[in-house]
């Protein structure tokens, strides 16, 4: 798997030279490989949203360089434009960005701006709608007549239709109930399995990060605090709690059992993993 996105010593300062000057990301070095499913996690104000806006040149770094496929994306208007198509960014509450008369036209907006032929635009809209579970009937409706969950899926389809090599989603589950959250997560997971697109998911839910990603990057105070597999990350629950993040409740249970003197592995973060472990331990103890 080749390197697709790379950040070299990237820093960004808001309002430089004013009393509100704030360095939102500081000296970030990260490399993402093609086909990765990475979760970026951090408390509010940790810099994660500022960070992802560097991935497609929405923000130019105050210092440092961002590369997509080895090319500096901030060289010219042309490279910035190319970066927007290579790396699709789905913002928080994307449903507020819907504006067209029909769902079809809304999803078609991105690919149309790429200058694709009408036939190709149509193909992409249909494929994107299918990927997010929007049926043909809904495509003719006004996006404003849809439910909240459907609107969000349409908004995500609008980005998917540009067929980016990297898909970045900033808190795509925010404000959804457990069922809605599972639907969106399953949809993203299926899309990843099928297309092998590089996915970068920004979230503050450790449970969701653990379930979905093969790598987790933890942001804290504008820097990268931890970077590793879910198991590696959860083994550092002391650091996580200190930086204002929660570990899954089931991990807390295992940590407490360990404190009470039981020989359990505290890097487990799923119910299935905990169940298996507890049953085995019981077998040993009884």
């Amino acid at each position: 798997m080749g390197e697709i996105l790379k950040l070299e010593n990237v820093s960004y300062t808001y309002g430089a030279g004013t009393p509100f000057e704030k360095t939102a990301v500081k000296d970030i070095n990260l490399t993402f490989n093609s086909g990765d499913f990475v979760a970026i996690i951090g408390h509010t104000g940790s810099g994660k949203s500022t960070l992802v806006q560097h991935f497609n040149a929405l923000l130019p770094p105050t210092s440092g360089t961002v590369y997509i496929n080895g090319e500096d994306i901030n060289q010219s208007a042309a490279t910035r434009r190319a970066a927007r198509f290579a790396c699709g960014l789905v913002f928080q509450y994307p449903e507020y960005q819907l504006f067209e008369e029909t769902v079809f036209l809304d999803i078609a907006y991105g690919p149309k701006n790429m200058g694709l032929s009408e036939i190709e635009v149509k193909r992409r809209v249909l494929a994107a709608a299918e990927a997010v579970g929007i049926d043909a009937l809904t495509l003719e409706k006004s996006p404003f007549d849809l439910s909240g969950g459907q609107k969000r899926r349409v908004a995500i389809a609008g980005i998917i239709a540009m067929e980016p090599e990297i898909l970045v989603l900033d808190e795509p589950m925010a404000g959804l109930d457990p069922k809605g959250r599972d639907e969106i997560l399953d949809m993203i997971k299926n899309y990843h399995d099928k297309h092998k697109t590089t996915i970068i998911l920004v979230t503050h839910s450790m449970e969701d990060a653990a379930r979905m990603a093969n790598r987790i990057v933890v942001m804290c105070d504008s820097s990268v605090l931890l970077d590793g597999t879910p198991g590696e990350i959860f083994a550092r629950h002391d650091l996580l709690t200190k930086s204002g993040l929660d570990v899954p409740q089931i991990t807390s249970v295992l940590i407490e059992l360990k404190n009470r003197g039981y020989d359990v592995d505290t890097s487990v973060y799923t119910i299935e993993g905990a169940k298996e472990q507890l049953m085995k331990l019981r077998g040993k103890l009884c």
Partner: protein
Amino acid sequence: MEKVIRTEKLTFTYSAEEARSFALRKVSLDIEKGTFVAVLGHNGSGKSTFAKHLNGILLPSEGKVYSFGFDTSDPENLINIRRNVGMVFQNPDNQLVATVVEEDVAFAPENMGVPSDEIRSRVDDVLKTVGMEKFKKHAPHMLSGGQKQRIAIAGILAMEPNVLVMDEPTAMLDPVGRKEVMATIHRLNKEKGITVILITHHMDEAAQADRIVVINAGQVTHDGTPREVFAHRKELLDIGLAVPQTVEILDELGLKDVALSVDECCDILEKYLKG
């Protein structure tokens, strides 16, 4: 116990043409003074619609809602009801009106014609209650989400309501912000005796309530203590809700107990491990 809220066969439909699409259907509930009630339901279950009936933002299509004995459908009662029943919504950015924190908190008592020295003391008081007294001269939009939501709560408290209705007040907050806000709500309930009605889909928040009411498809499906309600794991899953992981793991291991905290869960697991 005094009943602060009473709904009698509360039925609500958003559009008259589609009379069959009920948002709420014959919901009859009593809420007692000083209790902490969590209302659970998935998106579209009717739980927010229910909340908006409690202080007359929405009026029943059929049935009655009484807040402090006042019928919400009588416009003359609305002032009394809204002073007693304060509402906090999901997004703090939609609830803050002024450019300085203390002015924002003073907004409602000013509108109620409270004398200015009384406003001063109320504002100082409620800012202390939510732990934001140091920020009284700050600009609300420069605060974190959790801080903003605590300012929104302070603004409601400045009216000195007896009931706080919160519609997913932590949905837009990160874990730290959620903890701040939940700790504030619990303190208000315990120390000031304010009745809290918390609309949520966070199971860990519901686990800390005195009572859980589950709403699905506009009807109450479960009503009881967290222990009673979470014992119905499968039914809750069927209507798109989850149970806390402390409950889930015990159920997966075939144990009958319901644990509401990590400590309690570990106590039960210790017994299990020892056979």
